[in-house]
């Protein structure tokens, strides 16, 4: 029974769930290939948020009235949904934040305070700025060392260099992407965790991209922190997740101070609420939490196996079609890669490429993708990037490839 492959994703039905995809851009059907920047939202998410505002809305965790209790239940149900999605040991390991950036800054601030000057944080050469700049701030504030494990020409983690960076035992934390937003590379996270734990280092995974495409099981991964954001997983903006082991959250000092996060307050001192609330100062993103739960349920109903198979097929098709285009260079050639393809076209700057594609209704990202050091590693300032989601079709990739041939002619 478990040898049966999952039923393939019914993309036409999925597309019908996303109202925005019916739009035309300058008379052309929208070809949305920018989901890695932010994904579109299914009706289930939109409806859940609307229904919350229309029928059960009040502030959470503080009202003694019916509306507040109902809203608190709905918001906390989102925490249960996240815990189940990630296979967390317990729901209290799920901290709601604004986005991955805030999650990583929280760890840099609060776990960073537990690192001793002279210890090091190790990142990779394919990090988004959000998993680089917080560590630079920590370095400058706290006197830790920041190490960078380089990537290979194929866009994979340089394993010997990574191991070497751990060898002196000074690394207290490895903070690394689970899937590169530029190269599409999946990093070997199980291996990374084993190597890091062997020298006593904790591991933070930036799962902003990976959790969209793959089942994430934090117990199986055995990592210590996992950060992701709702809006890339077909949920709303303004809500993200930091999962962390309970004992780490308990040992860490608070990040932001204010309401919600306290146990008691006097002018002399305050004491902190139990985790996760210790890290959730102020009124949270209530409506967004409710929307995130709807997004998680939507993705789970489709099933990660079907999603992964669909995106694998799309990525293979895109790599085949794009590598046929003369003068087009694809960044990275990792063995294990997800639905993101960055490319440069000889003789045409990425912004000009994006403007021409846009005229045909095709939305791609162009620029440095918040990963300037990685761009420089490959000798580029910017690339165009096509990224795929559950609603992306093979035909859309054909439209992209056919149009790119014409873009090339335009600038020839």
């Amino acid at each position, binding site marked *: 029974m478990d040898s049966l492959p999952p039923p393939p994703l019914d993309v036409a039905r999925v597309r019908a769930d996303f109202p925005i995809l019916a739009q035309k851009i300058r008379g052309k059907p929208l070809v949305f290939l920018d989901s890695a920047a932010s994904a579109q939202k299914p009706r289930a998410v939109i409806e859940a948020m609307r229904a919350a505002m229309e029928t059960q809305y009040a502030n959470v965790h503080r009202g003694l009235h019916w509306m507040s209790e109902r809203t608190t239940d709905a918001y906390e149900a989102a925490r249960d949904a996240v815990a189940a999605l990630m296979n967390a040991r317990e729901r209290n390991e799920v901290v709601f934040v604004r986005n991955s950036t805030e999650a990583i800054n929280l760890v840099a601030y609060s776990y960073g305070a537990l690192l001793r000057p002279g210890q090091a944080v190790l990142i990779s050469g394919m990090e988004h700025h959000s998993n680089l700049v917080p560590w630079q701030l920590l370095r400058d504030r706290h006197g830790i060392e920041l190490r960078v494990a380089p990537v290979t020409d194929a866009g994979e983690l340089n394993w010997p260099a990574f191991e070497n960076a751990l060898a002196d035992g000074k690394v207290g934390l490895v903070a690394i992407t689970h899937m590169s937003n530029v190269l599409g590379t999946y990093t070997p996270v199980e291996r990374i965790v084993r190597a890091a734990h062997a020298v006593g280092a904790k591991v933070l995974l930036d799962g902003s991209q990976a959790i969209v495409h793959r089942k994430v099981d934090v117990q199986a991964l055995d990592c210590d922190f996992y950060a992701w954001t709702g809006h890339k997983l077909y949920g709303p903006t303004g809500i993200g997740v930091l999962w962390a082991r309970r004992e780490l959250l308990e040992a860490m000092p608070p990040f932001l101070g204010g309401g919600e996060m306290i146990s008691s307050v006097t002018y002399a001192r305050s004491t902190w609420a139990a985790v996760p609330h210790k890290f959730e100062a102020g009124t949270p993103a209530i409506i967004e939490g409710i929307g995130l739960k709807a997004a998680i349920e939507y993705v789970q109903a489709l099933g990660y196996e079907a999603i992964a198979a669909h995106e694998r097929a799309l990525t293979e098709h895109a790599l085949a079609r794009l590598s046929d285009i003369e003068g087009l260079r694809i960044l990275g050639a990792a063995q294990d890669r997800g639905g993101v393809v960055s490319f440069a076209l000889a*003789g*045409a*700057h*990425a*912004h*000009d490429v994006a*403007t*021409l594609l846009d*005229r*045909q209704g095709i939305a791609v990202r*162009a*620029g*440095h993708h918040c990963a*300037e050091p990685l*761009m420089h590693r490959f000798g580029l*300032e*910017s690339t165009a990037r096509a990224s795929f989601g559950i609603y992306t079709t093979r035909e859309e990739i054909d439209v992209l490839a056919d*149009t790119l041939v*014409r*873009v090339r*002619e*335009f*600038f020839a």
Partner: protein
Amino acid sequence: MSDTFDDLRDLYQEVILDHGRNPRRGRRLAAFDATAKGDNPMCGDRVQVFLKYGPDGAIADTGFEARGCAISVASADLMAETVTGRSQQDARALFAAFRELARTGRCPACDGALAEALERLQPLAGVHEYPSRVKCATLPWHALIAALDGAQEASSE
């Protein structure tokens, strides 16, 4: 060439494609009196403008180094061409008129004393329909003004 991008010919006129590919003044001046950089952190475009002044203070020579899209490189080249041989005051007036042209497509100054120079910049007027690209066209001008002001970096808009 297919008609796929016909409506983009307003933006990518032949003169822009030509100057974007082969900028005439895309070089660092061997000797210069002022230089300034412009940087668009959103997209990574970068330009550095070099100015050589004549005895009367007018702009005797202009060069630039640019890294960016066709529009930003062409704009830098057309700018360098039009301001060379003009007074600093005229260069500033051209900037004001060009900024208006790039943002709105309108050119109230085009009938005035600088009509001829503005005619040369007219192919860039198409950017006003592409709000995300206006900065590509104006970035080199901001660097020029910074150089004239004796600053090292253009303050971004």
